[in-house]
């Protein structure tokens, strides 16, 4: 039953599905050299979304993450095959920057992209470096999203780096992927004063108490559901939210209400 005091958990336990939609703000796609995935293609991921009640999913495929030259083509093809279910983040490779090209690609595919994704740790490059300013200016002007990989203790995408970006770009909508995993309290405390910052839950399930910390410090209205699919099962994240020490209202905020609000702000229909 997961939480005997929760109607939402009871409904899930009864049917194997939540009685509300799920909006996933952080996923990947396709193969990865280090790992065997039981499934990872766009078709398989959409089937998995169907099974688990995920209405929409924003992703950046592994091929785009790892191939600075040609990987984006796979993101575009996946979204155009499943236009009602998928949207992509265009990757920003800090060591292969070409803002004019990247912004043009996003502009030319408004049906595909909801914004950019930046992984400071993976590029070993601070996300608050001014070389990224053209991207942040563009996102601020257009209202699109910035998904950052954020990690506790990182000199590239830790609390100070993200706070610096949020301070300089108050109209930039920043989603903190992983919510500064490992030092979530420090991360939220450093950034919660900026209303343009949201906290996303990928990796959070593997440390009991993290989610409660984030909600306590930031409020459930600032938390977005995400999985890293196919790295994490959607169910694994669902179970964390249902099993955490939260109210059903807070759980609904996380599963879909906050996401729906953000969709409206960026002009996506739901």
């Amino acid at each position, binding site marked *: 039953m997961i939480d005997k005091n929760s109607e939402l958990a009871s409904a899930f336990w009864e049917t194997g599905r939540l009685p509300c939609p799920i909006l996933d703000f952080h996923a990947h796609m396709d193969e990865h050299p280090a790992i065997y995935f039981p499934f990872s293609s766009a078709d398989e991921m959409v089937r998995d979304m169907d*099974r688990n009640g995920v209405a929409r999913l924003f992703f950046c495929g592994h091929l785009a993450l790892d191939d600075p030259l040609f990987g984006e083509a796979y993101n575009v093809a996946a979204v155009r095959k499943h236009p009602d279910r998928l949207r992509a983040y265009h990757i920003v490779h800090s060591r292969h920057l070409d803002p004019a090209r990247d912004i043009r690609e996003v502009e030319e595919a408004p049906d595909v992209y909801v914004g950019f994704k930046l992984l400071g740790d993976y590029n070993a490059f601070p996300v608050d470096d001014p070389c990224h300013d053209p991207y942040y200016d563009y996102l601020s002007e257009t209202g699109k999203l910035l998904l950052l990989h954020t990690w506790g203790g990182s000199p590239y995408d830790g609390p100070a780096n993200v706070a610096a970006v949020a301070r300089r770009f108050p109209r930039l909508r920043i989603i903190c992927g992983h919510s500064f995993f490992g030092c979530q309290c420090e991360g939220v405390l450093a950034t919660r004063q900026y209303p343009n910052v949201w906290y996303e839950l990928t990796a959070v*399930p593997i440390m009991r108490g993290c989610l409660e910390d984030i909600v306590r410090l930031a409020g459930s209205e600032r938390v977005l559901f995400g999985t890293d699919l196919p790295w994490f099962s959607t169910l694994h994240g669902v179970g964390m939210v249902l099993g955490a020490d939260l109210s059903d209202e807070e759980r609904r905020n996380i599963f879909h209400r906050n996401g729906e609000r953000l969709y409206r702000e960026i002009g996506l229909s739901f």
Partner: protein
Amino acid sequence: MILDCNLTYGAANDGKPYRGCDTFAELTAELDRAGIDGGLVRCRYSDTVGVRYGNGFAARDTRQAADAGRWMRGVWAVLPPDTGETPSPAELPSEMARHNIAAVYINPEAHRFQPDPITLGETFEVLQQRRIPLILSTANGVPMELIYRILRDFPRLTAIVADQYNWPNGRRLYPLANHYENLYLDLSYIMDAGGVEDMTRRFGAERLLFGTAFPERYTGSMLAVVRAAGVTERERALIFGGNLLRLVREEDLT
């Protein structure tokens, strides 16, 4: 019946920022809230304070819970018998039976011994003969290389294997599961999309054990994964508890 093969309690002093479970009462309260009927329980003190201390708590607390009607069995840490700190290999099965202990584990990292046939060979022989489950987990100081080595030396061991530090971990776990028929997979860290279904298809549900790694992880995560996994209801029942019930046979100890 839902039984968790990976439960721990005891005030932790390991510097990790997870929400701990200091007492056995907190553990049972969480199991009641989550709808878990019982399981295999280690006392963390065996790794952080002292083996005799922690093993003693695990025996005392799980015995009380079992006497109260809960399916709860303890797990003991075992040490090289040469120092006489844990029961000798010959005495181990009867001592386990006497103290409500259903499985053992090793943690050569916390307990600082050489995990070699010289130190634990006799113990492993007894475990193998008596089909007593041995928990081998990378989360408990047993690196994957050592798991491979132990199973190569003692291939008939009834082993419950878990891999915390790498996921999805098919490239590490599947060769073991394919090679050793007495090996069972603890699902506590199988959090990848489709992982449970993939393992069920490859190895059969009979080889999979529901586990949560509570309190380091949320009980809800793996409950949800197994509850909604694309497997048959029979397979789900085996994973949730049937396999552990089959695996823990008191008659093997006495």
